[in-house]
């Protein structure tokens, strides 16, 4: 029965991973911007909900719209200031330049966060923090349940948004052919700008949940690492696959923690990543090969 408990925690962790990664799947997978500062943005989101809880007493789940709005605006500024100039680059150059620029950004954000919030670990503890309920003989935290529901809603919501709305389809069109999309009358600059803002604001949802576990200024790169694994597992360009890839990673990690010890879970997930990269670089859940 103990292994079942590990699986439950794996599913919850996997949902958090998927929530962090879904923004990156949009920004990297579809827009082609390799944003290493993605995890740092989730960290900012977590601190915003921590702040709102500490000073204004707003529940982290209820403050999600506020932090989403703040991160959306930060995302717009980031895109305007840093990434807009790369829109017409070839894919390879875009990835390289955006990776380098966002690495500089990681340095800045981490240090600013240390100045504002100190390097200590913080967490939000609400009245329902440690509470669990019984699920077929296993313990299921309430936060975990909300996390899974949020992950499903956000990820499949984004998937539908990108597939069904005009705006979502124009993002796809731009990613396929920038010039052609422009000729077809799509307002490319505005679309990219808003899409980037959406990708950033989605990290706020993940941040609200991360804040209830633990947040410190240095968590950014860890989360980027996890998100990259998930985006590659899901296949670049696949949004729905992010959810399954997140669950897969979460469960594998927590089951491997049961077998090889908690220190090597990071190694396990990275080895999975390498195996996938070598044998199926287009990802598990994507149909066509991405390049």
């Amino acid at each position: 029965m103990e292994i079942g408990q590990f699986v439950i925690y794996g599913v919850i962790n996997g949902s958090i991973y998927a929530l962090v990664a879904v923004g990156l799947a949009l920004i990297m997978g579809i827009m082609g911007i390799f944003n290493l500062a993605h995890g740092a943005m989730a960290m900012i989101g977590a601190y915003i909900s921590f702040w709102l809880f500490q000073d204004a007493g707003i529940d982290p789940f209820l403050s999600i719209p506020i932090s989403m709005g703040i991160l959306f605006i930060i995302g717009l500024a980031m895109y305007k200031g840093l990434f807009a100039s790369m829109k017409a680059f070839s894919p390879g150059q875009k990835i390289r330049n955006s990776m380098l620029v966002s690495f500089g950004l990681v340095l800045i954000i981490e240090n600013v966060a240390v100045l504002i919030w100190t390097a200590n670990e913080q967490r939000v503890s609400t009245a329902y923090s440690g509470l669990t309920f019984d699920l077929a003989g296993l313990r299921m935290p309430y936060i975990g349940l909300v996390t899974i529901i949020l992950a499903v809603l956000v990820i499949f919501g984004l998937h539908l948004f990108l597939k069904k709305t005009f705006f979502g389809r124009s993002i796809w069109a731009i990613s396929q052919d920038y010039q052609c999309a422009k000729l077809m009358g799509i307002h490319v600059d505005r679309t990219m700008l808003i899409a980037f803002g959406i990708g950033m604001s989605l990290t706020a949802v993940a941040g609200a949940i991360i804040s209830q576990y633990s947040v410190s200024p240095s968590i950014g790169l860890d989360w980027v690492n996890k998100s990259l694994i998930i985006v590659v597992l899901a296949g670049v360009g696949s949004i729905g696959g992010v959810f399954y890839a997140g669950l897969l990673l979460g469960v594998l990690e927590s089951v491997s923690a049961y077998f090889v010890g908690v220190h090597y879970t990071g190694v396990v997930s990275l080895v999975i990543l390498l195996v996938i990269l070598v044998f199926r670089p287009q990802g598990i859940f994507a149909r066509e090969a991405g390049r």
Partner: protein
Amino acid sequence: MSLKPKKVVVPALIMAVLFALPVFLKGDYYLTMVCSLFLYVTISQGWNLLGGYTGQINVGQSAFFGISALVTRLLWAGGIPFIPALLCGALASVVLSLVIGIPALRLRGHYFAIGTLAVAWIAFLAVENLFPGVTFLPGKYVATYSLLPRYYLFLVIMLSTIIVVSLVVHSRMGLAMESIREDEDAAQASGVNITKYKVIAFVISSFFVGLAGGAYAYFHVSYYWYLPFILMWCFEPILITFIGGVGTIWGPIIGAFCYVALKEVFALTLGEVNVLIFGAVFIFIILFFPKGIIGVPEKLREYLFRKEKGSRAARQKNMNV
């Protein structure tokens, strides 16, 4: 390469100055700084061969740097003379590059970058768990510790890296590598064996990065085992190459000089926020000077020229209206 007198005299002069430098440079502070400058030139030049000339962005250099430092340190502290230990370390780095490179270099674009980044993470996590704590040199080595042999070791490694990389890039092989960077499909269609040249570039690059890693293990009396594996070693060479000018021999040299100088000045004057300012400078360079310092004169000329042309066009437009 044709041997013009200027081409021989200037490098010979520079080398002579570098070899004689410790005589004039008094004080461990400056000597240490010059050593770290040489280290940065070496690893950046190594990155430049693969990233700048062949176009394969390796974000996992810390793994190659670190594994050589680890092997060299273990063997050397275990009683093997330093030079064989150093060569074993570099060899370990080469073997790792073959193991990683042959499958990974088939990947294109960001997959190679992500894959190498993952390798660096794995190496870091594994070493952090397997070798917790600090490595100290055995007492007999500490007693005879002096900076001078370290200085010459770094110098020789740096010079050999620069010489080998410039020989490679000026040869037919270098041409093949640059063709891969410009257009992989076209290179392949023209009969270039792209995987072969990518792997060769990767191996040469890792060999010299490995030598630098071994020298790092030789230089420091004590350090945390995981320190040569931290991700800074992945990004610093990229940063330096971009500051100087990517895909040029002089780029990493100029870049490393500026990097070490800037880092020192910032650390001395700005205190805690120095990394923050550093990140800002980095972003500024990538965005506005994508060709690095090497490209500044050209950019300046282009800017002035275009401005003149632009204003003439504007005047003409006004006249037409």
